């Protein structure tokens, strides 16, 4: 009854795999596609370690059944750097020590990335809201806010906008 062949675009590349409803997007990414950057922190959508973008939206990939993302575009942490150039967020996270153990970082990065796509100058409150589904036990959230502000500023400059007066 079910066609288990699934095609989707992951980090800009067309990928195909077979899966029934027993697998999640998270397990397909990690096991079938070897993209182990996205982590499993709780397997039930409580912690955000597994956040990836599906069609531009941050979602808990542990709570998405593999067949549900047929034909979708998925972005994982492995897809943030372009041609070896780090995304400003990746640089900023490193510079502000927005992580320590790093296990929450891939999910956190994707939540922040999605925010900056739709909001080029987010307020502190907006940043905290964007990461309110991402749990960090090592570092807290202040350095993440700083990193996002730093990256946002850099992105605005790159796009010629500069800082708003």
């Amino acid at each position, binding site marked *: *009854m079910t066609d288990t062949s699934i095609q989707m675009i992951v980090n800009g590349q067309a990928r195909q795999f077979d899966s*029934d409803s027993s697998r999640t997007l998270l397990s397909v990414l990690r096991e079938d596609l070897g993209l182990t950057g996205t982590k499993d922190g709780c397997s039930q959508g409580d912690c955000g370690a597994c956040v990836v973008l599906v069609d531009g939206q941050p*979602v808990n990939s542990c*709570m998405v*059944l593999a067949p*549900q993302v*047929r034909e979708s575009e998925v972005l994982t942490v492995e897809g943030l750097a372009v041609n070896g150039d780090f995304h400003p967020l990746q640089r900023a996270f490193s510079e502000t020590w927005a992580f320590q153990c790093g296990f929450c970082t891939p999910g956190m990065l994707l939540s922040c990335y*999605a925010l900056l796509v739709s909001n080029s100058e987010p307020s502190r409150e907006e940043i905290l809201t964007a990461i309110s589904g*991402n749990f960090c036990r090592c570092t807290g959230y202040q350095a993440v806010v700083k990193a996002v502000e730093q990256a946002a500023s850099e992105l605005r400059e790159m796009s010629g906008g500069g800082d708003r007066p």
Partner: protein
Amino acid sequence: MLTPDYIAPETLEDALSIKSRIGAGAKVIAGGTDLILRMRDRVFEPEVLVDLQRVSLDSIVCDEREMRIGPYVTLSRILNDTAIAALFPALAESCRHFAGPPIRNRGTIGGNIVNASPAADLVPPLLAYDARIVLRSLSGQRELALTDFFTGPGATVMESDEILTEVILPLMPARTASCFLKLGHRRSMAISIVNLCVRLSRDADGTLAAAKIVLGAVAPTPLHAVSAEEFLAGKKLSADQIAGAAKLASDDSSPISDVRASGSYRRQMAEVLVRRALTSVWEELAEENADD
């Protein structure tokens, strides 16, 4: 647990055929943020998962009488929709503190209704706004008031061959204000200890025309605090009356104790939150009155 088949039909008719043929063994999956958990806990063990993402059930349409929301509209979209923010602000508000962004991007209004959790956050506003829903099966469709939908925790009147296809909200009369409040242990990723929606509509002379006070997480189903509503009918609200109504609403509730809170605390909080909600909504109406 056997792995369920997964189907994403192209048309609603195809989906209804499956439901007609398989019944309760075919479960509709939208965002899955609740369903998947229940499947893992073996509360449900469906044979087939029916995903309606290809069927256009995610529209928000508004005319001069009502707004019609498809069940697959996500909580994020509701939160960001300008029409909903203007016309049904408590509904938008109920999505604002719902879990976190990744869950809001998947969770849907249909899912929140059909899961029928007594603590469902969207349901009190929907009830306060007199929502109706459309249930369709192969043999036809029926429209019913949402207030007639819930029968117990996780239980509804939906038949095994039916699919929820629409949520209808009548436009509110002029001089209406509403508010949604939620009490949780933290500001995100929190299941409501108590939640509620208060919607008041005022007559031109300033008296109360309609009062809706709906509480969640304090009874087996979302609770219409009818005695409180009747108590306030036709009045111009004073602090004493608000306090009285809050007490009545709290008395109507029958909350359980669980790992999040005791029943006694929930009952106390019902009173506090109803009072706060009534106060703020009445003040908002009074300000509008001043503009009349």
